[in-house]
């Protein structure tokens, strides 16, 4: 079982790869809309990447209103 720190770390790495930004520039507390300059549909695209990586399914409503990496990590963690 992964720890929440590991989950968060993997999310940050995947987000950096997916949106082609340096991993070092991302932190768990970051607002991903602002930091990555993405819209809500791009956020959903990221979510699919994360689902495939972690092997979980997250309904769209679970991430409604979520805008920072650490909350996203806890939502994923709870389904691992």
């Amino acid at each position, binding site marked *: 079982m992964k720890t929440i720190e590991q989950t968060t770390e993997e999310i940050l790495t995947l987000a950096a790869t997916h949106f082609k930004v340096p991993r070092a520039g991302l932190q768990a507390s970051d607002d991903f809309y602002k930091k990555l300059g993405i*819209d*809500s*549909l791009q956020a959903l*695209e990221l979510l699919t990447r994360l689902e495939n990586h972690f092997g979980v399914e997250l*309904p769209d409503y679970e991430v409604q209103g979520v*805008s920072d990496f650490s909350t996203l990590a806890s939502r994923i963690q709870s389904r691992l």
Partner: protein
Amino acid sequence: MGMLDLTKYESLGAALRDALARWPDEVCLIEADREREKSRLTYRQFQEAAEPLAATLQDSGFAAGDRAAIIMTNQPKWLISAYAVFFSGGVVVPLDYKLSAAEHLQLLAHSKAQVLCVEYPLWRAITQSPSFQEHQLRKVLVTEAPPNADLASAQRWEDFHADRAPEFRPRLRIDMACIVYSSGTGGHPRGCVLTHENYLEQCGAVSPVFPFCPGSRYLSIIPTNHAIDFMGGFIMPFTGGGAVIHLRTLRPEFIREAFTRYKVTYMAVVPLILKNLQRGLKERFAALPAGKRRVLDLLIALNRACTKQQPRLGLSRILLKDIHKAFGGELRALLVGGAFTEPTLMEFFHDLGIPIYNGYGCTEACTAITLNDLKPFRPETVGRPVRGMEIRIITPDADGVGEVAVRSKTVMSGYLDEPELTAETLVDGWLMTGDLGRVNAEGHLQLFGRKKNMIVTAEGKNIYPEDIENTYEGIAVKEFCIFAANYVWPQRTMTGEQLLLVIRPEPGHVVDYALRAEISRRNGLLLNYKRISGYIVWDQDFPRNAAMKIRRAVLAEEIGKHLDRSAMVSL
């Protein structure tokens, strides 16, 4: 058998009842989740699902004219619930599932809904809200609840059984059919009261342009609580015998897949989704080898030349076969609405031979006011008035630009329990839209920004600045207020709209790091599309009326006169 002749009906309930009887064996609803298909219903099965629900509602004392709210994502049970309410003579209150639980409770109270049909996760959030105890709901039906879930006082939507047939309750055209909230919450929720006549007239005006018949398929992406999807993804397809496809996820890749899997005929999108589709196509084009790319560019140029005067779908499907295949190959119209769409974005699709229709409308007018006819393609306009719609430009300036006012049988009867707002908006039978426009020589409407203090996001959300002010309540300033930046500095554009916080600091104080940080923190509490883009500092007291309310128009004008847009500090 063609579309129903809506002129002979008095209510949505009566028209839909006939529709169900007319095409019993045609598919009306398909529900897909990712790559799985969850369910498929014929019109007969739809009726079999709705009637026991109607009987349950009626047994619980739900009377003609009573109100039932629906808070669900786009799915079959949304439409089944709505039909059961209309069948029982009730009023549907569609609420935006993306609102917070507190906002849901506020609108449930405002609409005086007695019944609620709601999805389980949304209901769970509502019951956890501090103001939950005060609700006035008589019956709550919860869909998809897990087997051992605690539903509080609610019942399972799937559990109802009825031992008798429900009674059909006729309504008149002038009766209320829906209360649709065109914008949020805040002090004055704008609940548009729409009558059966409004919907029947609108459907009758728009259906000939986008005709549905058995075999037509509409992909439903825009939330069904939105006027566009309610019309395009429910009333229009049903009264024509078409099918509606619901997706349980709005991930762009599954939307793309749905096109090909279900060979979609029509789809309505907001500009944000269109931009996403464009990005996907551009990435595919960029990945092509140079030779193939040159051929594609030539074909696009050829298609553009051939479709200048009007769409030639058959030809475009041959010229740009792969692209049309990616859209399922049977797409007849992609409708873009809900917010202003940039002409270049529309041109991109038009050049590919994808028939892209824009228009202009608002919930207050029951959706569409104008529609573009593509003969020829004029992306710089929002098209001609739909049948039965009159447009007037109020006090036009030298360029012919003034406030757009409209009159039609589709215009709402008013905002629920808001007589002042209604009196400002409906003047002598004309709906004052608050948008600035001009009708050109060909009779097409062009829009040039807004007169009112609001913005519309690319997701089609109307945001009134007053509604988000409470988020900043208590910040360490003397006073503050929020404006649409274009309201302070009028610009002849509908794009790039931003919200602006105006700060009047305490005397002798400046905006320091701590205050900035606090503003940023509060801003972060808002959903991303409701956030302010920046602030300005104003060094005079705000003008106020006798009731101490800020005189916003006066303040905006003063700021506009003395400060430049560049004074705005980004957050």
